[in-house]
């Protein structure tokens, strides 16, 4: 027991130090002007995408259900936090923290409301019902007065690179800690065999609902960051295509691999920015990629493999000892 706890602490410390180093490198390159404002925006956008992809992977990869309305949950979070930070004037840090809490709670509630009818059933109803939700939420935003119709402007910019970086890191940490916990194993067992999981005494409906709503809440938090960074929201940025793009990031990286999600979200956000000639063909290429990956490597490129710094160091040490 002591040994395991030590191991966990060591791996946590290594990852934290690595993250801090990464953060320092990014910050230094922004401050010194190696990376200009455009790249800073791109990297913030990439971090938000990482958060969305990892949270979607919780449902798609680890639970084995396919939601198609992740952008809808993001929209709920974004508008909730946008309206809150604009109307309630508080110091930026407090306001951002409260906005994050409010938007993830709102998205969590939406997740439960949608999950209850869909997840009680076996089969693919979640895909359809979330697809419908994503469309309806956009419709509602367009038609309500409080959300400003086609665009909602004037949200104070409370989120910067620092807050986005650390909140994304925390979100990824929470999800990966959940997966390696007892509850995570319950979720994984539902993906492997729902009937067997139920026979082992796992409350499958509860865990399905729990994982799905949690991933919705994380999407809501990502939406809050997006709103506080962009300062302008339009319903057009939360379409079905957006949800599909997140699904592609999950599938490409590997269903059930957090490392894969991070890598593919980073690549698929940064690559189109450099290959602007291909923008026209982007969705076409994605669609072919989806089909081909599903036929030849259904679990995604990385499958469920994870990269672990602690394991790598241990391996290197062992090699040195030999």
């Amino acid at each position, binding site marked *: 027991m002591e040994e395991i706890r030590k191991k966990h602490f060591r791996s946590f410390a290594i990852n934290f130090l690595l993250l801090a180093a990464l953060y320092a490198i990014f910050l230094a390159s922004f401050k010194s002007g190696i990376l200009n404002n455009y790249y800073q925006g791109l990297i913030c956008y990439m971090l938000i995408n990482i958060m969305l992809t990892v949270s979607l992977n919780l449902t798609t990869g680890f639970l084995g259900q396919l939601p198609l309305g992740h952008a809808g949950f993001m929209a709920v979070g974004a508008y909730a936090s946008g309206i809150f930070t604009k109307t309630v004037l508080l110091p930026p840090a407090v306001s951002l923290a409260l906005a994050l809490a409010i938007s993830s709670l709102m998205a969590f509630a939406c997740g439960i409301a949608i999950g209850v009818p869909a997840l009680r*059933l076996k089969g693919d109803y979640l895909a*359809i019902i979330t697809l*419908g939700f994503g469309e*309806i939420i956009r419709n509602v935003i367009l038609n309500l007065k409080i959300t400003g119709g086609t665009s909602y402007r004037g949200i104070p910019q409370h989120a910067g690179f620092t807050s986005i970086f650390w909140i994304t890191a925390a979100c990824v940490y929470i999800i990966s800690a959940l997966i390696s916990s007892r509850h995570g194993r319950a979720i994984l067992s539902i993906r492997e065999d729902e009937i067997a999981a139920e026979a082992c005494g796992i409350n499958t409906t509860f865990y399905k609902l729990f994982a799905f709503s949690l991933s919705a809440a994380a999407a809501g938090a990502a939406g809050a960051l997006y709103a506080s960074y962009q300062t302008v929201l339009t319903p057009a940025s939360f379409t079905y295509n957006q949800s599909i793009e997140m699904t592609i990031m999950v599938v490409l990286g590997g269903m059930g691999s957090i490392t894969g999600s991070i890598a593919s979200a980073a690549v698929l956000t940064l690559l189109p920015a450099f290959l602007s000639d291909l923008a026209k063909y982007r*969705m*076409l290429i994605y*669609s072919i990629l989806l*089909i*081909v990956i599903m036929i030849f490597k259904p679990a995604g490129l990385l499958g469920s493999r994870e990269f672990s710094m602690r394991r790598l160091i241990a391996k290197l040490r062992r090699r040195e000892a030999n």
Partner: protein
Amino acid sequence: MVLLQQVISGLSIGSVYALVALGYTMVYGIVQLINFAHGDIIMVGSYAVFFAINQLGAPFWLAILASMLFCAAIGVLMEKVAYKPLRNPPSRRALAFAAGLIAFMLLLMFVISIAIALMAALCVCVAALFLTKRIGWSPKGGAPRISALITAIGVSLFLQNIFMLAFSPDPKPFPSVMEGTLKYGGRYSISYGALATMAISVGLMAALSIFISRTKMGRAMRAVSEDAGAAVLMGVNVNSTISATFAIGSALAAVGGALYSASYPQIDPFMGSQFGLKAFIAAVLGGIGVVPGAMLGGFAMGVAESLTKAVDSRWSDAVVFLILIIVLLFKPSGVLGKNTKEKV
């Protein structure tokens, strides 16, 4: 009387929903797959009719027939290329071919000459064959359920984007083919288009019912949807039955698309997704996998939508999804569906 008018127009659009819902429900019954691309077949069918009329000057009925054949072919192709490899593991050769095809298309975007791209793609093909042999890799079968769903989304996205690139995302006006209205009771009228839509749809549904209940292929379809494993043992060719199901479903969707576009005279590459979603909900409402259920669900959906449109058109889409949620909460197997016990 306004109510009656709305109900009639609802039945007219509902009959189109029913036609499309039939395709969803037949495919689901036979391979337990929500074929997301079915909605886009509507779009393909509409474009086919559009071209047959505008470019070739064909009459409407001939254009519909041509579009049915075209969509049936697309449906079968889609099944063979994208869905069949999920059921039966593909060979290394298929992988090499796919790699070559992707390389070819990617190269076409960068390289001007087709010949060079073709040569390079061939090299990729051979390299893939050689490499997989060398490391002894071959694709494994038995992909999880979620893969089929993701593939279906991929196919749907592919159809939308290929049509968008080919014909631009702008909506095109659909030629008016069924004009004129029938007056009755003084002030009220019903368009010939709506009447023809209902007549054609009901006729096709009757034909399909006879086909399923009377012919050999129809019996094979029922057998496969009941128990595919047992059907194989009885000598049913499951693969050709599945192909036939896709062909019939797609042909019906083509008719649905043509009739829909004729009454809402405008087509664009993304028209299929919303319409297809509603048709799918109609299929769930009637009981997915049950053929009469799809017809009933389609008509019910059309009337419900038409009535809400009369009250407030902005919320008609929301009402449709509300129906779905209510059905899933209270009778998930649909109005005509049977409750099935799950066996281990």
